[in-house]
């Protein structure tokens, strides 16, 4: 596989100009994640309305192009989705990064799937998978509020 398949234009663009890199006002859920091996960190802010629909989601943090692009694309895509849908999409995305050849979620539009598949290149780079998945794990932590820090397992 060519390195350019990992660093596609869309990834470089989102990495350089991440969407939603800010703090949601009046957020009602949040969680921090960090990757002690790399020093990457992310803080996810989530605002759910009464119907448990994502009114806004944003993040703060720093990291490589892959992790910034992943958080950027993820936050863009989750707005307006219901909590249960968010969880289902995260599961589908993590499954795709891990082993599945494609995304199966019925909660994703075709163009959304295409965008997410741009991140599928990391499959070939096992050491970089955690860069792509950190913000997704952290989003789930924010929803479940199970733990303050969502450290990725490094070994």
């Amino acid at each position: 596989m060519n390195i350019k398949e990992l660093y596609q234009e869309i990834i470089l663009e989102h990495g350089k100009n991440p969407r939603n890199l800010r703090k949601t006002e009046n957020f009602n859920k949040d969680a921090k994640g960090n990757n002690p091996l790399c020093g990457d960190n992310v803080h996810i802010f989530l605002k759910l309305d009464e119907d448990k629909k994502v009114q806004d989601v944003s993040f703060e943090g720093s990291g490589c192009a892959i992790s910034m692009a992943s958080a950027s694309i993820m936050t863009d895509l989750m707005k307006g989705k219901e909590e249960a849908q968010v969880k289902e999409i995260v599961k589908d995305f993590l499954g795709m990064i891990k082993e599945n050849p494609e995304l199966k979620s019925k909660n994703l539009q075709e163009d959304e799937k295409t965008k997410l598949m741009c991140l599928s290149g990391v499959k070939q780079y096992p050491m970089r998978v955690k860069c792509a998945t950190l913000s997704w794990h952290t989003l789930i932590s924010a929803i479940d509020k199970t733990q303050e820090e969502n450290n990725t397992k490094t070994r």
Partner: protein
Amino acid sequence: MSMSDIKKEFPIFSNKIHNNDLVYLDSANSSQKPQSVIDRINEFYTNEFSNTGRSVHYLAVTATNLYENTRSSVQKYINAKDKNEIVFTKGATEAINLVANTFGQKYLEQGDEILITELEHHSNYVPWHFLRQSKGIKIEFAEINHDGEITLESIEKKINSKTKLIAITHLSNVTGAVLPVKEITELAHSKGIAVLVDGCQGAPHLKLDMQDIDCDFYAISCHKMYGPTGLGVLYAKKKWLEQLPPYQGGGGMINDVKKDSITYGDLPNKYEAGTMATAQVIAFDQSIKFLEKVGIESMIKHEQELIEYGQEILKRNNSVKLIGNPKNRAAVLSFTIEGVHPHDIATILDEDGVAIRAGHHCCQILHDKLGISASARASLGIYNTKEDLDQLNNSINNCKKIFNL
């Protein structure tokens, strides 16, 4: 041996990485192994294996002699006064933990201070932090200057009547700065303070003379010195090894064991409990022989030429920012590229067969001080060439192209 032949001694360089020649610039992390070291491990397990120091049969005697031979070689290589000042450990990390644990137990009380530096690897900070938690000691940090160096003055500034031990690196694994360890030791001793030198990076690249430096403790990582993993050396002055309590308890470190009392063995057995990394110790003798065959002076000259060349080409490459600018630099070139995260740099360079490290290199304190979360690091070994550094520069340019810089 001519410097251009050295790569041939390391079989790993005959492999292709992603269809490219391997350009290995991660020796500060761990060095590659010459064929003689690899063969020695095989030979020992194939024809000579036995445990050391216990049994009286032929193989046990042979293994014990080989094991002790390496101790003598290390003593000679680092110019220690006494063979029994060489203690084998599982790594430099264990060597530092051994000192922190035993020195802390016997000589440190609440309010006492340990002076380290902002350059230290986590393995020369965390063991002292344990004492901060268990005994209430204080840890002071000597500050780096603008060039990423630690000067004698920056050490002197932090010494006070509470300072009991100074623990410093010989050579920074991030800025490449060589510390004036001899001068620091002289200053410390004039105030009755003990000195531990973390020699993880110093030992593979600098001439070692324990009697000249005069430090109390010196920790060595053998796998960074063209030797096997799982092995380190603690050099400690005999008076300390005699006075300090044992570290780990077990077989081999005892003298007499009764139900109500135990006496401990003589040096160095007192600090080598349990079955040691026998094959690694025996093979490490070949690492020292290899370094001696190349010649320390030739190695230093070669690596100095490389580091100067590397600094030159990276300084010329716009958008590359070198970390630190020490006057006395060895073996390490850390850098950042504006607009490209170090992990992305490392992944892209790897595609060309160029192996570097990205991250905080176990020096979070230093990276916080520099205001960055990570850096890219190219570190040299005896086998590197100017062509390797040219390839590094080419791959950096390729990386800039991918990121449209």
